[in-house]
């Protein structure tokens, strides 16, 4: 018994000593939550999110904190891994809101996590900005949920218009993953837009496959035989190289056009020369960027050794949005519920925000009105600005 008593006393004194080091814990700190897929199916997306957030924090720390209403506050990032799973994203959001007292949340990136996580954020009245989620349900009827990117119903027509104006084609083929929500939705939107332009039946081949398929030869053979002039495939960067190579092997000679999911640093690495000269719609173009965008890209490249993809750029913009909303809120009361509400109100008031992925203004639903960019993969394998299209 005496041993235990002595041990307890020693443990206490050690604890008291250490805790005095960490004492200033309870002053008002601005905490921003990051809900990112650091492990799971798309770790590269999580990495881009994390790096962009760390760069943002560096800036704030260099300025000595975030100034709100004439007072400087320390800023802290709470980075949580959502494992690319819906329930984990929900847990991460609940934890950040109820345990870490975050003022706003950036993320999750994919819609399948952003839709349920948005429900939590809205329930606890905490601002959440999903930089990359394109599913309308993410922000629908949720006053506290915003997003940093344009929606598919805008992107589909942009691509259809671009192909029509650029090449003058009238017959298109679509190849998409029926089991994945983003490609499927975008393929449908594109088909509608194309057929509205060129008449019923102008999408001559509408072929699908299932996630993790690697052999597309039967679908591509049909597409080649259908007499289509252009192939639209809104797939992710890991599938695009396979599709492009197999299409070329099977004798496809027309252009292949993609969507913002192509815009990853790894695309060209995996695809090589086969992808040079192809087009896709995106949020921003890295090569030939100017001003703030260029500064961001250069800094990111210098720190992390590769060109940031659109997720990183959108995350950066979302953080800037959150920062501006916090500053616009006027002052922080220290009572988290009140401050969260003030931040939300400030966010809805932001107009013509000048981000590195373009100017944006939020609609009533929390979706931004912003321009899309058509990117060309040039012969050095860089993503080059080609044209832009605004609503």
């Amino acid at each position, binding site marked *: 018994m005496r041993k235990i008593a002595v041990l307890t006393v020693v*443990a206490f004194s050690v604890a008291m*000593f250490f805790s005095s080091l960490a004492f200033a814990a309870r002053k008002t700190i601005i905490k921003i939550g990051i809900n990112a897929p650091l492990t799971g199916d798309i770790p590269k997306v999580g990495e881009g999110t994390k790096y962009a957030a760390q760069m943002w924090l560096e800036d704030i720390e260099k300025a000595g904190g975030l100034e709100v209403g004439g007072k400087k506050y320390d800023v802290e990032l709470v980075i949580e*891994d959502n494992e690319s799973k819906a329930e984990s994203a929900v847990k991460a959001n*609940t*934890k950040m809101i109820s345990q870490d007292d975050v003022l706003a949340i950036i993320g999750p990136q994919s819609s399948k996590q952003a839709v*349920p996580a948005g429900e939590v954020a809205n329930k606890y009245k905490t601002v959440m900005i999903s930089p990359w989620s394109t599913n309308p349900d993410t922000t629908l009827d949720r006053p506290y949920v915003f997003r940093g990117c344009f929606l598919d119903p805008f992107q589909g027509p942009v691509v259809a218009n671009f192909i029509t104006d650029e090449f003058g084609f009238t017959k298109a083929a679509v190849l998409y993953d029926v*089991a994945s929500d983003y490609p499927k939705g975008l393929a449908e939107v594109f088909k509608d837009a194309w057929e509205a332009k060129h008449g019923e039946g102008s999408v001559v081949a509408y072929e699908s496959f*299932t996630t993790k398929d690697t052999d597309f030869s039967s679908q591509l053979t049909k597409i080649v035989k259908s007499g289509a002039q252009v192939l639209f495939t809104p797939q992710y960067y890991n599938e695009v190289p396979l599709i492009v190579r197999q299409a070329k092997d099977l004798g496809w000679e027309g252009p292949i056009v993609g969507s913002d999911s192509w815009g990853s640093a790894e695309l060209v690495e995996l695809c090589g020369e086969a992808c040079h000269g192809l087009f896709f719609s995106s949020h921003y173009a890295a090569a030939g960027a100017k001003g703030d965008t260029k500064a961001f890209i250069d800094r990111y490249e210098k720190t992390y050794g590769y060109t940031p993809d659109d997720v990183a750029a959108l995350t950066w913009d979302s953080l800037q949005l959150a920062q501006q909303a916090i500053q616009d809120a006027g002052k922080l009361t220290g009572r988290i519920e009140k401050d969260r509400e003030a931040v939300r109100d400030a966010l809805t008031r932001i107009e013509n925000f000048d981000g590195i992925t373009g100017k944006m203004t939020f609609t009533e639903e929390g979706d931004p009105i912003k321009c899309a960019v058509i990117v060309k993969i040039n012969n050095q394998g860089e993503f080059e600005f080609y044209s832009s299209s605004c609503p």
Partner: protein
Amino acid sequence: MGIAKKFRQIFSTVPMLGWFLGILTAVLIEYYWGYDYISYYLGLPKIPVLFGALIMLKEPVMIPGALAYDLIVYVIPVLLVAKISSVFTNPGAALLEKLPLWLSAVIHLVCFYAILHLWAGINDYRVLVVKLTLVSIILTVSVNVINGYQGEFSCSHPGFMALGAYVSSILTLMLFTNDKIFGAALLPPGLGPFLFPLVLLAGGAAAAIGSLAVAIPSFRTRGDYLAIISLAFMFIVKSAIENLNIIGGARGMGGQPDLAPLPVIFFWTLLCIWVIHNFVTSILGKALNTVRDDEAAAESMTVKTRKTKMTAFMFGAFWAGIAGGLFAHVLTYINPGMFSINRLAEILAMVYFGGLNSIVGSIVGAVSINVLGEALRPLELFKWIIIPLILIFVMIFRPYGLISFTEINAKKLLEAKHKRQQGVSP
């Protein structure tokens, strides 16, 4: 070892009721003084949510503070109160012993729930973790019926869960909410909580009927073949839902009403454990074990093997459907991608970690995998190295799981621990 032995000796006189009282004291201390005093003076930013595991891994400088918090709030009060109160909790337990066992068990469970509710209520994150853990318990116990008691290797549990989740979600969306797919609510939303059990049962029934699709063709075979057919079933369910645009397809289905608060889930978990316990200890359950050990011998001893297997399989699938329904209403969003190979790996990990052929084992497996998964969250990638490593070690040293082929005796667990009994059974 000397300390551990002495420790056990000192606390061997504490009955279950005493431990409950100790834990209740700890939770009350946390509830009233945890935030304003204890965590404040220890320099912690807030009440450590999962016994400080998260904060310790994230900021090592907080380790002493978090440990001291655990000591002050949990360890010392629990041990002290449990020991001191054994003076009157022992007679209390003896009084309860005179009641029928079921009544005594119900009283204990009510106490347990009250404590759990109070503890979880301190933070909403705890509530969510407890809810999902309870759902995992239902899943694990139900898969144990098939993979443990029946001795088959079935991979279709995520499929059953998906059936239950989708059927119950469709029903609640159709009946109690104004949904964009199904239109206006057919019934007043106020009826939701009362009719929710029926909705869940419908989900379970759908899963049970779906399980026939696996059971009828595959029970002519054994072993690997069932694994393959059931795996195929899982993928069929997933692909079918992905291609059904009317229920959201790959986009998933959201907006379920929040009909699954903690007490509801706790009730269903208890019901599941109780029913499955009765099932596996019934004659049918014993028959199931004989089928597993030697099908030919069982057949010759007049066991209807085919019927037994079918019943057990459907029974397991039914509870998986219930778990799916609860899961959908906790998250208020489902998509077919959730019920895929990842989920299967998680379920199988829980059941083989905890132990085959044991309900207690399943509970231990579900709780430990869930709590580990949450507690190691700050480690990100390393979490996925540590958990599989633990699993591998369990498989090496205890091939059938931590607690397999044993059950806890409820009577012994709840009885009074008098001093004189000690001499009899040390």
